[in-house]
C-alpha cells in the first residue's frame, strides 16, 4: 500500500501528514471501487458466456442430428443394397429432435438479449416447461440405444459395407470429423447428461441475489432428476425385455428350497462350543434342538457382521460423494479433456452413484436392519428355554410333582416344542433373505457400471488419445507427466535463482559500525546478514530488520535445534531462524588496523550478491576536475588520524598509509590539519557536473 512508503521515517509535519493520509485513503477507496466494478463486470461476462454456451450447444447439437437423420440417412438409403435395419437406427431420433427444436424456439421467443436479466428467467422456464417432454423423448432413445450399437457393430463386420457407410458420412458432412454413425447417434446420450453441468456453470457465475437464482437452481435440480428417471426407465426396460419370466430350476429355486433341517444337524458342534463358553451345560441333551440353535447362533453372528460391513461400505461411499473433484476451476473450460472429466464426474457424483446408494439402502441395508431386529425374539426365547431346562432337570426324576413343579415342566416343554417347530423355519427364511440381498447387491453393481459405460461411449470420440490401446496410452501419459515435471523444475529454479537475490545496496555508516563491532568481537567468519525482517515469536527471539548484521554465536539452540541460531546483534543477544540469515563476506575480512601497525591483510573474494561497499580507495592525485570529499564523518582515534565532517572537501596527499595499505588515506582537511582517514569514507565528486544550481565551494 501507499502508506507503507512512509516506513518508519519521522514525520515532522503532522498537518501535511493528515492531508496526505486523507488523500491516500480517497485514492485507495476509488481504486477499490474500480476493482470491484471490474470484478463484477468479469463475473457478469462469465455468466453471459455460460448462458450463451447452453444455447449454442443446443443449436449445434440439433444441427448435427439433422445432418445425420436427413442427409446421411437419405444417402445411406440409396446404397445398393441398402444396409439392413437402417430404419431401426432412427426410430426415436425424431422425438428428440422435435423437443430440441421446441426448446430452441422457446429460448428465442422473447427476443431478449443474454445481458437482460429476464433472459435467464426465460431460459429456465423454457427448460422446465418442456422437462416432461424431454424426459419422454430421451428415455425411449436411451433405452433403445443398445440396439443401435448392436446394429452398427453388425455393419462394422462387413468391411465393404462399412467402407461405403464411412464414405457417405464424409460426403454428407465433410466439415465434421466423423468416422462412424454412432458419432452422431450417441449425441442425445451425451446431451442429456450435459444439461446439469451447463446449468450449474451458469449458477456458479450468478449472484444469489439475482432474481432468477432460485429458478435456476430448480432447473439444475430438475435436469439431474431427469437423468435419474431416464436411467431408471432404461433399466426397467432392459429387465422387462430380457427376462421372460420362465421359471426353471434356477438359483431362486435353490434358495427357496434350502433344507435347513439337514444343515442344522451339521452345526450341532457350534452349539456345544457356545455352551462351553457360557459354562452352562445341561444334563439333558437334545441333539436336534442343539443343531437348530447352533445354526441360529452362526446366523445371528453372520447378520450382525454383514450389517456392520454394509454400513461401513455406505459410510465410505458417502465420503466419496462429498469430495467434489469436479468443482475445480483452472479456467480451462475451453479444453476438451477437463470438460469431459467434469461432465463424467458430475454425472457420477450427482446422480449415478447417488442412485446406486439409494437402491443399496432400500434393497439391502433396510431389510438387513429389519432382519437384525427380528433376531431378538428367538434369542430371548432360547435363553428362557435354557433357564427353564435347568429348573426342569432338577425335578425331572421325581415321580410325584407338586403343582408348581408341574407348571415348570409344562413351561419348559411348551417353549421347547415351539422352538423345535419354528426355529428351523426362521433360520431358513433368514438365510434366503441374505442370499437374495447379496444377489441384489451384485445386480446394483452391474447397473452402476452399465450407467457409467453408456456415458463413456459418448466421450470416447472426443478425447485425442482414446484410440490408443491401454499400454500405449499409459506410456504416453506417464512420459508426458515426467516431461512436464522436468519443465516445472526448471521454471522453479530460474524463479528462485534470479528473483530471490536481495537487492544490492551500499552500507550505511551505522551498518559499517555494527559490522566492525561484530567482526572485532567474533571474527569475520561469523558475520551474517538478515535477509528479511523478522519478528521474534518465542522467548529470547530477536526482532531484526532486513540488512542488519549479526554474528553467529551458536548454530543451534539449547535444545539442539539446528534451525534456530544464537546471534549477537550488536549488544543484543537472542535467537533467530537460520533460514533468515545469509553469510556475509566482506571485502576486508578484518577491520583495518591503525595505520602504524604492521600486518598487511588478506583480501578475500567478494560475494556477488552481498552488500558491497561502493567506495573504493581513490588513487587520485591532484586532478583539477575532481573534488574529493569526506562522505561520512570520521573521528580521529589517535594522533595519526584526522577528524573530518561529512561533506567536507579534503585534499588527498597519499592514498595509502606508511605501509602501503590502501585502506587508509593521508589527507589534508579544510582546517589544514593532516592525518589519516579510512579510504572508504572518501568519495569523489565530479567538479563542474551541472545540475542547475550546483555550486562548488
Amino acid at each position, binding site marked *: 500500500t501507499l502508506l507503507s512508503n512512509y516506513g518508519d521515517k519521522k514525520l515532522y509535519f503532522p498537518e501535511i501528514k493528515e492531508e496526505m493520509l486523507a488523500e491516500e485513503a480517497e485514492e485507495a477507496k476509488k481504486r477499490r471501487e474500480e476493482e470491484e466494478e471490474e470484478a463484477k463486470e468479469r463475473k457478469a461476462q462469465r455468466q453471459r458466456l455460460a448462458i450463451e454456451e447452453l444455447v449454442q450447444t443446443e443449436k449445434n447439437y440439433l444441427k448435427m442430428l439433422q445432418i445425420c437423420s436427413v442427409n446421411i440417412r437419405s444417402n445411406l438409403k440409396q446404397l445398393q443394397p441398402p444396409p439392413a435395419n437402417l430404419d431401426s437406427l432412427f426410430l426415436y431420433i425424431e422425438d428428440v429432435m422435435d423437443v430440441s427444436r421446441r426448446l430452441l424456439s422457446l429460448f428465442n421467443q422473447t427476443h431478449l438479449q443474454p445481458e437482460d436479466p429476464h433472459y435467464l428467467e426465460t431460459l429456465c422456464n423454457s427448460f422446465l416447461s418442456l422437462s416432461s417432454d424431454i424426459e419422454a423423448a430421451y428415455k425411449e432413445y436411451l433405452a433403445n440405444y443398445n440396439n443401435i450399437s448392436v446394429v452398427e457393430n453388425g455393419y462394422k463386420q462387413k468391411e465393404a459395407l462399412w467402407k461405403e457407410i464411412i464414405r457417405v458420412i464424409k460426403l454428407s458432412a465433410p466439415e465434421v470429423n466423423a468416422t462412424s454413425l454412432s458419432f452422431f447417434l450417441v449425441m442425445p446420450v451425451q446431451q442429456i447428461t450435459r444439461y446439469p453441468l451447463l446449468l450449474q456453470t451458469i449458477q456458479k457465475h450468478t449472484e444469489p441475489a439475482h432474481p432468477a437464482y432460485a429458478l435456476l437452481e430448480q432447473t439444475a435440480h430438475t435436469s439431474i432428476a431427469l437423468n435419474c428417471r431416464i436411467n431408471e426407465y432404461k433399466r426397467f426396460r432392459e429387465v422387462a425385455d430380457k427376462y421372460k419370466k420362465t421359471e426353471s430350476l434356477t438359483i431362486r429355486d435353490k434358495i427357496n428350497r434350502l433344507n435347513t433341517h439337514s444343515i442344522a444337524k451339521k452345526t450341532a458342534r457350534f452349539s456345544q462350543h457356545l455352551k462351553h463358553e457360557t459354562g452352562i451345560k445341561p444334563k439333558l441333551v437334545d441333539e436336534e434342538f442343539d443343531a437348530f440353535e447352533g445354526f441360529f447362533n452362526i446366523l445371528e453372528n453372520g447378520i450382525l457382521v454383514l450389517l456392520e460391513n454394509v454400513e461401513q461400505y455406505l459410510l465410505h461411499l458417502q465420503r466419496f460423494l462429498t469430495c467434489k473433484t469436479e468443482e475445480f476451476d483452472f479456467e480451462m473450460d475451453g479444453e476438451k479433456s477437463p470438460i469431459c472429466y467434469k461432465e463424467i464426474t458430475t454425472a457420477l457424483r450427482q446422480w449415478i452413484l447417488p442412485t446406486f446408494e439409494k437402491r443399496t439402502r432400500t*434393497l439391502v441395508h433396510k431389510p438387513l436392519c429389519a432382519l437384525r431386529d427380528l433376531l431378538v425374539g428367538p434369542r430371548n426365547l432360547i435363553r428362557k428355554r435354557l433357564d427353564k431346562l435347568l429348573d426342569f432337570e432338577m425335578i425331572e426324576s421325581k415321580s410325584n410333582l407338586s403343582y408348581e413343579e408341574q407348571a415348570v415342566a409344562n413351561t419348559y416343554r411348551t417353549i421347547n416344542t415351539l422352538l423345535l417347530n419354528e426355529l428351523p423355519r426362521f433360520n431358513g427364511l433368514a438365510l434366503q433373505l441374505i442370499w*437374495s440381498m447379496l444377489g441384489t447387491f451384485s445386480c446394483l453393481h452391474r447397473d452402476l457400471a452399465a450407467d457409467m459405460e453408456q456415458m463413456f461411449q459418448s466421450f470416447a470420440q472426443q478425447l485425442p488419445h482414446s484410440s490408443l490401446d491401454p499400454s500405449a496410452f499409459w506410456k504416453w501419459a506417464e512420459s508426458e507427466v515426467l516431461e512436464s515435471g522436468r519443465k516445472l523444475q526448471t521454471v522453479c529454479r530460474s524463479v528462485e535463482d534470479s528473483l530471490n537475490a536481495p537487492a544490492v545496496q551500499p552500507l550505511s555508516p551505522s551498518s559499517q559500525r555494527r559490522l566492525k563491532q561484530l567482526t572485532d568481537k567474533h571474527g569475520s567468519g561469523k558475520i551474517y546478514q538478515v535477509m528479511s525482517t523478522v519478528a521474534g515469536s518465542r522467548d529470547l527471539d530477536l526482532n531484526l530488520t532486513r540488512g542488519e548484521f549479526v554474528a553467529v554465536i551458536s548454530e543451534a539452540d539449547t535444545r539442539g535445534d539446528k534451525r534456530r541460531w544464537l546471534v549477537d546483534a550488536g549488544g543484543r543477544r537472542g535467537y533467530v531462524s537460520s533460514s533468515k540469515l545469509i553469510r556475509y563476506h566482506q571485502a576486508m575480512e578484518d577491520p583495518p588496523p591503525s595505520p602504524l601497525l604492521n600486518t598487511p591483510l588478506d583480501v578475500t573474494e567478494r560475494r556477488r550478491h552481498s552488500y558491497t561497499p561502493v567506495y573504493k580507495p581513490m588513487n587520485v592525485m591532484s586532478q583539477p576536475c575532481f573534488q574529493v570529499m569526506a562522505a561520512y564523518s570520521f573521528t580521529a582515534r589517535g594522533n595519526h588520524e584526522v577528524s573530518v565532517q561529512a561533506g567536507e572537501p579534503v585534499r588527498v596527499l597519499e592514498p595509502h598509509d606508511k605501509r602501503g595499505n590502501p585502506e587508509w588515506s593521508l589527507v589534508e582537511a579544510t582546517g589544514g590539519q593532516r592525518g589519516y582517514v579510512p579510504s572508504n569514507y572518501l568519495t569523489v565528486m565530479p567538479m563542474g557536473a551541472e545540475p542547475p544550481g550546483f555550486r562548488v565551494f
Partner: protein
Amino acid sequence: MSWIPFKIGQPKKQIVSKTVERDFEREYEKLQKLEDQTKKLHKDMKKSTEADLAMSKAAVKISADLLNNPLCEQDQAFLESMTALDTAMKRMDAFNQEKVNQIQKTVIDPLKKYSGVFPSLNMAVKRREQALQDYKRLQSKVEKYEEKEKTGPVMVKLHQANEELKPVKEDFEAKNKQLLDEMPKFYQSRIDYFQPSFEALIRAQVVYFTEMYTIFSDLTDQIDPAGLTDEQRQRETEAKLSELRSLSIVAND
C-alpha cells in the same frame, strides 16, 4: 540519515505506471487463484481416492466375512454363490488398486508438483515488492536532495544517494521485467501441463467400470438372474419379512 526531516517516502516521479502495475496485479491474481484451485483439487483428489480405496476394501470385507462364516459350508449352492461373490469383489479391488495407482502417478503427483512452484513465485513477487519499496524510498531521497540548496555536503549526499539508488533501481527493473514475462507464461503452461492428467483420469475410470460391468454381469447371471425390478424385489423381501414376523418365536419377547 535521520537528521534530514522527511515529509513522505513517496517519490514524485512515477516509477511504475498505473497500467503496468494493474496488469501485474491482474496476472498475479490469476496465479493466486490457480494456486488455490490446484491445492483444492489436490486435496479433493486425495480424499476421494482414499474413500474409493476404503469402499473397495469394505466391499471385499462383506464377501470375505460371509465366506468365513460356517453358514456357507452347509449348503453347496450357497457356498458357490458366496465364493463367486467373493471372487468378484476381490478382482474389483485389484482393478481399483490399479486405477488408484495410475491416478496417483498421472494426476495426484503432478498436481502436487505444480503446487510446489507457487511458494517460489510468491516469494519472488514479495521480493519484487520489497525492491520496489526500496526503489521508491531511495528515489524520493534523491529527489529531496535535488531540491535542496547545492552545498558541498548536500552534493556529497546527493551523489551517494544516486549511487545507492542505481543498483536498487536496476534490481527492481530486472525483477519486474522477469516476473511480467514469466507470470503469463507460467499461467498459460497449465493447459499443456494438465491435459494428460485429465485424459488419464477419464481413461482410468473407463477401464475400471468396463471391468466392473463384465465381472458383475457374469456374477449377476450366476446368482441373481431373474431380473426383477426394484419394486418386485421389495415385495419379495417384504413377503419374507412378514412371514418371519408371523412366527410366534419372533413376536415373543
